């Protein structure tokens, strides 16, 4: 078994459109190790979210994939829905951008965490509820014993994302995919969520695939970076190398577009 947790090779995703099939991800290759964080950066439409959805087999209907996605050496592409279900949420889990719409408004957060735990681990309702309380505690939701019975709209934006993270980690997955997890949050809450993710990663050793359009966020959390543009992998390397010595024109452009506090104000 390799020491790489996730190995993606030549991943290509084709979506059907009104004007014929379009390749939205083209020959993308990367790896994520245990206890490692890979950041995928790019503008909207660069194919970064499609790459993440392809790993979990959650692409829109009619999408076709080629290449290879291996988790711990096991191929995931082309596996049946049934096989993938046992991987989703269990070995690989995912946190999405907008925590309010990503949680079902009709059920308590406790039930939503517990249903996932029971699906993969079984056990009684009571035990699963206890797991949910512990999961909420781990993401530092105050008074988790009471909050477990609250509905998503009763939480603040940052707390909702904590709930999503609690849910994602309740089955101790080996890989966590975070798709723009801080984009919908304001800056101070963003920093808290990033800190929480980094903390949890250091205690659990979970590998992380972190997707964002925000270079500042990537630089604070990722060790290695993949830059994507219209489905193409543009640059791939350590965060240090990509940020301090970008080889590709596009990466340089992205970096230049970040406003800096010591920039001179054009008069």
């Amino acid at each position: 078994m390799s020491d790489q947790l996730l190995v993606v090779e030549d991943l290509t995703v084709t979506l059907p459109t009104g004007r014929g099939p379009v390749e939205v991800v083209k020959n993308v290759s990367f790896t994520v190790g245990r206890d490692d964080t890979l950041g995928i950066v790019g503008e909207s439409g660069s194919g970064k979210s499609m790459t993440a959805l392809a790993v979990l087999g959650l692409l829109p209907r009619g999408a076709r994939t080629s290449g290879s996605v291996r988790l711990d050496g096991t191929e995931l592409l082309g596996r049946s829905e049934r096989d993938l279900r046992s991987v989703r949420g269990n070995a690989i889990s995912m946190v999405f951008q907008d925590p309010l719409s990503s949680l079902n408004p009709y059920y308590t957060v406790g039930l939503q965490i517990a249903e996932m735990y029971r699906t993969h681990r079984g056990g009684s309702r009571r035990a699963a509820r206890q797991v949910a309380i512990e999961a909420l505690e781990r993401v530092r939701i105050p008074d988790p014993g009471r909050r477990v019975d609250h509905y998503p709209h009763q939480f603040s934006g940052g707390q909702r994302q904590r709930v999503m993270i609690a849910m994602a980690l309740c089955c101790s997955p080996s890989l966590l995919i975070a798709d723009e997890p801080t984009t919908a949050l304001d800056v101070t809450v963003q920093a808290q969520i990033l800190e929480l993710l980094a903390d949890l990663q250091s205690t659990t050793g979970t590998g992380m695939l972190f997707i964002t359009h925000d270079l500042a966020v990537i630089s604070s959390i990722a060790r290695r970076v993949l830059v994507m543009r219209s489905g193409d992998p543009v640059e791939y390397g350590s965060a240090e190398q990509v940020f301090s010595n970008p080889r590709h024109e596009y990466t340089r452009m992205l970096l230049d577009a970040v406003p800096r506090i010591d920039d001179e104000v054009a008069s």
Partner: protein
Amino acid sequence: MTRYVLGRLGGVVVILLAVCLFTYLIFFKLSPDPAVMICGKTCTPDRINSIRDVLGLNQPLLTQFWEFLRGIFAGREYGSVHCPAPCLGYSFQTNESVWSMITARLPVSVTVAVGAAVLWLLAGVVGGLVSAIKQGTWWDRSAMALALGGVSVPNYVLALVLQYVLVVKLQVLPFPSAPAFGDDPVLWFESYLMPWAVLAVGYACLYARLTRSNVIDTLSENYFRTARAKGLSGALIMRRHALRPALTPITTIFGMDFAGLLGGALITETVFGLNGIGKMAADSIAKNDQPVIMAVTLLAAFFVVIGNVVVDLLYTALDPRVRVTSS
């Protein structure tokens, strides 16, 4: 929550009083003089006056309205005749007590409404659901085309066609006669089958289209994607994360539609000759039988207003977002 319920019930009383007042004004003040109508063709001014006296039509309007209201809750006197509560007056046509006319006919209307509701809920929701899951397939397209057609066919056309085909030509069903359930359950069922179906078709088509679009909307919700990403089983995803959110709004519409039907299915009952509230309404309007028209209108308003409150309370139970803000 208790305060909310009490507030709603207070609102119900106010609305019903307003409906009473308006119906009273429309049917007793703007219509032809009831005394003249009761008196008939061979009539003298003296006789008209004495009828006015008995009905209280010589008194001021507010006093008349008050007497009418009092009659509903405490009963009233018409000359020497005592009308026990709840008194809605006597039919100008048959002299029958309006209240007993209602109690005799309500079971028929309720039977028609309940049976039709069961049919249209089953057909509409299941049809819409299958269409949503098989979106874009031939099944979906033909079901939705059929639904559009079904909504467009008027009740009375469908009723006459069904009667002609099933009763007259094929003779598989008896002519509807509204027998009591206890006398002959099979005949009872066969009798009501056509009215149920005719009434249900329009609703079923509407509900199918509604269910389909609600379910499709839910399937594109982010929380549905989350449910899939969690690796839940297909059945659990459908039940919890697609059906519950998609069907909750349908309870509102169903409550209102059903409440509306309890006030009588005018066309269906008339076409099939079922002696329910709807047929009573049609007959009373044709003969300008004011006390009956008044009672039928009030009854329909009562059901709709109560239905509205029940739906609202049910919604607070079904949707936690409403529940928490209202308490």
